[in-house]
């Protein structure tokens, strides 16, 4: 086994051992799907939007990936506080390998979480077109990687969890709400619409929608290119900041 594999495996083990985290992270998407899906469904249909669950489900899958991935990245802070991080930082391996293993592990967990929500949403009435499923997985993976790397970058700069609430309220929630996960971006006032164009998750959500059978807004190639480039940049920044950690 090598460094990257064992650190990847560590993230997985920690996730699957924490039953409360798995169950807890299913509750929120389920609530969104039921409350919003059944609540707004009729209005959406009346407005001529078609089946709201088919529109909403990719957004909620992206949401659960977003939260899980950010949280996985933020785990760096816990490892700093509980001391385990030191153990990896003094090891004779490149810190880029360490951060890569961690990030891949966090992204895998997020991807798995997205898969669970995908299945749940099918139970609730989501009927995706499965022809492009492999491409949907690619988009889910990019979202996972991007936000795990972002979480890692943020956590590398923080010393404790005190800033966490701030990050949730001023970064993660806006990223979620401005991504078009819950409503179409097309009807927005142009000022807000331009902001949504800077939101990486907008392209993730749009890509998931497009590959799962709904119409895309930006086009799949645009989604893939922009999200792909942003992911590479985030991985670079996350790794760099991680490599500079002092404890």
């Amino acid at each position, binding site marked *: *086994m*090598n*460094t990257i*594999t*064992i*650190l990847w495996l*560590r993230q997985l*083990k*920690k996730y699957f*051992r*924490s039953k409360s985290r798995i169950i807890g992270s299913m509750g929120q998407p389920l609530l969104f799907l039921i409350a919003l899906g059944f609540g707004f469904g009729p209005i959406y249909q009346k407005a001529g939007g078609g089946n709201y669950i088919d529109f909403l489900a990719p957004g909620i899958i992206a949401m659960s990936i977003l939260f899980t991935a950010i949280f996985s990245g933020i785990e760096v802070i816990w*490892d700093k506080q*509980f*001391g*385990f991080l*030191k*153990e*990896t*930082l*003094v*090891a*004779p*391996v*490149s810190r880029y390998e360490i951060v890569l293993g961690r990030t891949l592990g966090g992204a895998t967990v997020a991807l798995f979480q997205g898969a669970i929500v995908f299945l749940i949403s099918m139970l609730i009435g989501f009927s995706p077109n499965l022809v492009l499923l492999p491409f949907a997985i690619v988009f889910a993976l990019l979202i996972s990687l991007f936000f795990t790397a972002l979480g890692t970058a943020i956590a590398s700069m923080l010393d404790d969890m005190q800033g966490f609430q701030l990050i949730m309220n001023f970064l993660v929630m806006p990223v979620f709400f401005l991504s078009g996960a819950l409503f179409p971006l097309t009807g927005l006032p142009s000022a807000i619409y331009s902001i949504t164009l800077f939101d990486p998750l907008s392209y993730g959500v749009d890509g998931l929608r497009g590959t799962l059978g709904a119409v895309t807004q930006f086009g799949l190639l645009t989604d893939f290119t922009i999200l792909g480039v942003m992911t590479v940049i985030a991985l670079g920044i996350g790794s760099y900041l991680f490599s500079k950690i*002092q*404890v």
Partner: protein
Amino acid sequence: MYAIETKELTKKFGSLTAVDNISFQVKHGSIFAFLGPNGAGKSTTIKMLTTLLSPTSGMVTLNGFDVSKDSNEVRRNFGIVFQDPSLDDDLTAYENMELHAVLYKVPQNEIKERIEQLLNFVELWDRRDNLVKTFSGGMKRRLEIARGLLHHPKILFLDEPTIGLDPQTRNHIWSYLIKMNKEEGTTIFVTTHYMEEADKVADQIAIIDHGKIVAQGTSAELKEKTKTQSLEEAFIALTGHEIRHEEAAKGLHMRHWRSAARRGS
């Protein structure tokens, strides 16, 4: 070439100078005790020696490699047992050991055998599949020590390794460390507040106070210099009687409090 060499090493945290212009050398294969009151700057020095903190100024080399420039090469040369907790509580004892073995590139076919041998040594083999969060403080400490020895480092840093351990375990562990030192020539750099321990094992002692080295030499030399009978008396003569309230309160870590509480009760 020395195993460890520092020149005018300094670390400032804002306005506080935690380590103030210290220079020392540690010979290959020796046991070097780094003693000092709470908050003196011992752990900060170890962090700089082990690439965890970058010095404000000054130079450190390990086996000739510069800590700031060749940090990857430096990391191949040492093992460390930290003062603060450093285990992953959500993994088992075995998994913590295995992760270390992989990070330190212990040959795949030796991993299992070495882990078994060391976990037996610290009497945790029966508990290998338990999550570390179910361990007592002393068990965690033993696991950390076993882990630090897993990859046979050339230089071993031990930051208060025996804190919170009972006398039997302390003796048991020290006899193993001395054997490693004799047989494999492992250089040992240790901090401790147990003066008898330092007196027994150390070839060289440095005493640090308020970030500065106030004396260096063998135990006999320090006693002679201070005209005292024991290393403890020499230590007090060199560092004074006052308790380091301010620094102690800032510098102490969780484990201190826990083990102090354990000793007190």
